[in-house]
């Protein structure tokens, strides 16, 4: 197991308060994403717990792109990863944030 933390600043707070959203499943090649409001002084914090060790550089790139797509503020994102590919991680994060922002599709 490996734990990685990323923190971004310069995002925008949501217009309306949103409720915590849980997306995905804990299963091989998959991951679980919890998105919740948090008083982080305007920051967006991502905490990753992953079964696959040694992919920090790729996580960094995936998270940088994610924040570029979704510049959030005062949001805590917790990821429980069981060896998902970057494709699955990005899709799951996009789904989680869209659900967090706009309710269920």
């Amino acid at each position, binding site marked *: 197991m490996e734990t990685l933390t990323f923190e971004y600043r310069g995002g925008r707070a949501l217009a309306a308060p949103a409720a915590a959203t849980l997306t995905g499943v804990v299963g091989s090649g998959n991951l679980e994403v919890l998105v919740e409001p948090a008083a982080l002084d305007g920051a967006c914090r991502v905490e990753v717990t992953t079964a696959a060790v040694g992919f920090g550089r790729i996580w960094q790139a995936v998270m940088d792109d994610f924040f570029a797509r979704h510049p959030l503020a005062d949001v805590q994102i917790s990821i429980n990863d069981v060896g998902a590919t*970057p494709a699955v991680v990005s899709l799951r994060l996009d789904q989680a944030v869209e659900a967090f922002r706009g309710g269920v599709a």
Partner: protein
Amino acid sequence: MTVRQWNTQAQNRAARRERAAALARGRHVASADARALLEAVLEPGDRVCLEGNNQKQADFLAKTLVSVDPARVHDLHMVQSVLALPEHLEVFERGIARKLDFSFSGPQGARLARLLGAGKLTIGAIHTYLELFGRYFTDLTPKVSLVAAQAADAAGNLYTGPNTEDTPVIVEATAFRQGIVIAQVNEIVDRLPRVDIPADWVDYVILAPTPNYIEPLFTRDPAQISEVQVLMAMMAIKGIYAEYEVNRLNHGIGFDTAAIELLLPTYAESLGLKGRICRHWALNPHPALIPAIEAGWVESVHSFGGELGMEAYTAARPDVFFTGADGSMRSNRALCQAAGHYACDMFIGSTLQIDLAGNSSTATLGRITGFGGAPNMGADARGRRHASPAWLKAGREARAGRNTIPRGQKLVVQMVETFREHMAPAFVDTLDAWELAEQAGMPLPPVMIYGEDVSHILTEEGIANLLLCRTDEEREQAIRGVAGYTPVGLGRDKRMVENLRDRGVIRRAEDLGIDKRLATRDLLAARSMKDLVRASGGLYDPPKRFRNW
């Protein structure tokens, strides 16, 4: 002055048949005499086609060939499309055969590489199907062919049924060049449902002790389709099928394209595309296509071969599938490959590796797997002359701003996730094919689809339209721009990629107006094998190993 003999081949054929005369009653030979028959008709150095297909295998004749005395039968030159069974290589291990010309060796690829390394055989060439069949009619005509059929009658006519595959082309080449055709059959009946091969093209018929083996190669369990594959299928439908109005097409074998088939009655329907795309197919009877057929999307399907379990379903849908007067499906690999090459507007399929020029290869180190049909389907047909909206639009995009005479172009789409299993990147600087070519002494690296033929690369990150690239540098950045977090993708020039995105050369899901929240398995028209059976009204009968309910 000597007078030249013009019928030496016929004389040779007569001599072979004379040696076997005691073994045959009419065209029929007992299975116990099969080995004696092969030893009687074969001569050292013969070119032999042992029917190995994608699906149907002449397995009894393969076992029999392995059992012949290498002192009598040796140095054979095997000319067959597929190496599927262990026996297909045992003939080389036992010294019965020496040289090989083939198309595909999927399951035997690793062993083939070892035998080649050990000097047990030489390879003439690795062909595409159409090339090998073409050579059957030029310089690689089989002298003896060992084929498989479902049934024979007393006269020796053959019924091949849904899995006709390569049989017609093999038998025609052999029979009309004074060769010998030997068929194994599953049953002998008084009256065949229909005649697929006439008796006077067949020399000997053997009732095999067990029915021939058939591989369910095209069955994909919808339960294994991932959400990323659903997302990619949505991009394919909205970003390519709809934009080019693709109506005549071939799909590859993988889960990526199975996802597209299962999204036609749901997502594509919601986009109002029914009747506007995907009407005519060169395709095996994929179980995953059942929901689209039942929803009225599909007008015709011509097939390379059959698919185990689809017999009753195809027979019940004769408006869609090519069927005989008896009601059962007929397939033909050579004709379907010709349709796939010349009559289809699009090929879309998966691959294992793509390089920075868009060359695509399934070759991996230590395995010689060959090509099968993908290179013929996945190549612009430069002999094509008829127009269609898809062909014209692709041709316009590729030629815009160039001073060339107008012509169309085929859409050739490579669909891959940026990482395969175990985080192996699908995008690479150098294809493994180069090292394999060196190891195996090949004249060329084995490339499945050349970059110059690839029109689009589709990954979970988006679609790169290579038709619109004007320089090698643009092409490279377009590929890097959809290569995700692979080293190739991370090596992109971000500004250039954003510029390509502004020009529509690269399009992301969001650029196509795709709501990623819809990319779930709920969008699949069937989510399990049981759903496919239900969609077929109980007509589809999956092989046991796919029955998981």
